């Protein structure tokens, strides 16, 4: 239990450092603005209690927000994504997953399931994040293309990370 908790904490810190030190500095275009830290919420075990998921999402957003201006954007976006995850999993995960306390990842659930799962939830996260940042509908389509391109980039980075990490872990 303690080991599991520590491994999640370690994963969170690694994701946060990757986000702040690497991803944040890749400034390709104003339309491609990926965030990979939501992966932490996505890989929580399927059987995590709904209220725990919401609370963990909120705390994750709070910590990430400390490093961004203005404060509150990531809190709102991540809490929303965490809440949405509950419903997505009700519909997309089966009973065996719940019984096995499965933590969703690429190798356990297969690429199609995992990429779709990431795409839906990351898209929701980015939609809240980018529209709240603009805080007006006057740039609706421009913001939409920004959400769209950034979601694709985030999911691509997450999938790449999963391929590298979990393929390597399987080979051992």
């Amino acid at each position, binding site marked *: 239990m303690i080991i599991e908790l520590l491994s999640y904490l370690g994963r969170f810190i690694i994701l946060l450092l990757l986000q*702040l*030190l690497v991803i*944040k500095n890749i*400034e*390709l*275009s*104003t339309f*491609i*603005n990926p965030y990979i830290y939501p992966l932490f919420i996505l890989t929580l075990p399927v059987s995590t209690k*709904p*209220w725990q998921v*919401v*609370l963990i999402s*909120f705390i994750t*957003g709070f910590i990430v*927000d*400390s*490093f*961004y*201006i*203005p*404060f*509150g*954007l990531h*809190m*709102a976006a991540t*809490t*929303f994504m*965490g*809440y949405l995850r*509950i419903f997505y999993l009700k519909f997309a995960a089966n009973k065996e997953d719940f019984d096995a306390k499965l933590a969703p990842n690429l190798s356990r659930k297969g690429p199609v399931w995992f990429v779709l799962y990431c795409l839906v939830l990351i898209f929701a996260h980015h939609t809240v994040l*980018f529209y*709240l*940042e*603009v805080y007006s509908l006057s*740039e609706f389509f*421009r*913001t939409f293309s*920004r959400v769209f391109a950034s979601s694709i980039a985030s999911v691509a980075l997450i999938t790449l990370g999963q391929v590298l990490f979990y393929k390597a872990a399987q080979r051992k």
Partner: protein
Amino acid sequence: MRNLLFFLYKYYTFLLFFSLELFSLIILYQYNTYQRASFLNTTGAVAAAFYEKVNNTTSYFSLRRINDSLLTENARLRTLQLNAYYQNGFTLSTLNDTSYKQQYSYISANVVNNSVIRRNNYITIDKGRLHGIEPNMGVISSNGVVGIVTAVSEHFSTIRSALNKDTKISAMLKKNGAFGSLEWKGDNPKYTNLVDVNKHVQVKVGDEVITNNFSTIFPVGIPVGVISEQSLDAGDNFHTLKVELYTDFSTLRNVYVIRNKFRDEQVELERQVKGDH
């Protein structure tokens, strides 16, 4: 009562989500309007200290470029110095000290955190209240305008960069003084737009844009950029102008914060006038 408890029990996840989301939104908009919530200042300081550590390491990689830009600036300032000019006149007028009173002073600072690709970009610098920085001071680089200070803590300040939806900087064309306002539309960090320039004004590609003295934030004549695209739609009252910025925000390392010693006086005066109406 039992029904209420049952309701709470049944929907506690939703209620938790709802209250946390509401809390986030309140914080977000409170913070945007007042920038004062004190516990947020603490977390901001932690993040700024983190970014400063990172910056201490990474800035070594760009030392050569920073040196070059400072040398260029030094050369330009030396050219402006009095002893760089040949005295053409015969008579020397004595300069009465009281006819000059310093209005602007500059505080140098290092950028510790910056972004250019978000819709609303902010910059964090390593000088704060202790060094005399206050909200609403202008910030420039050695090349041109950077932004406006929004919030200040003891050792750090955050700047709303010119690449931000809410930053509106008053500017004018150098050649004829026609004024407008700088607004960033969010597509390219190298360019911004000059809006509200009246259509009867002659504008050409290549005209220089500088700050004007309408605001209390920037002194007049701080360079902004050059006009790179100009168009005037039929029936439009204002030019559509794209400005290529002199400041390269993506490699920004050193900035100057401008302190206007007459600001309080001007703001107070303008407030009195508004109060009369």
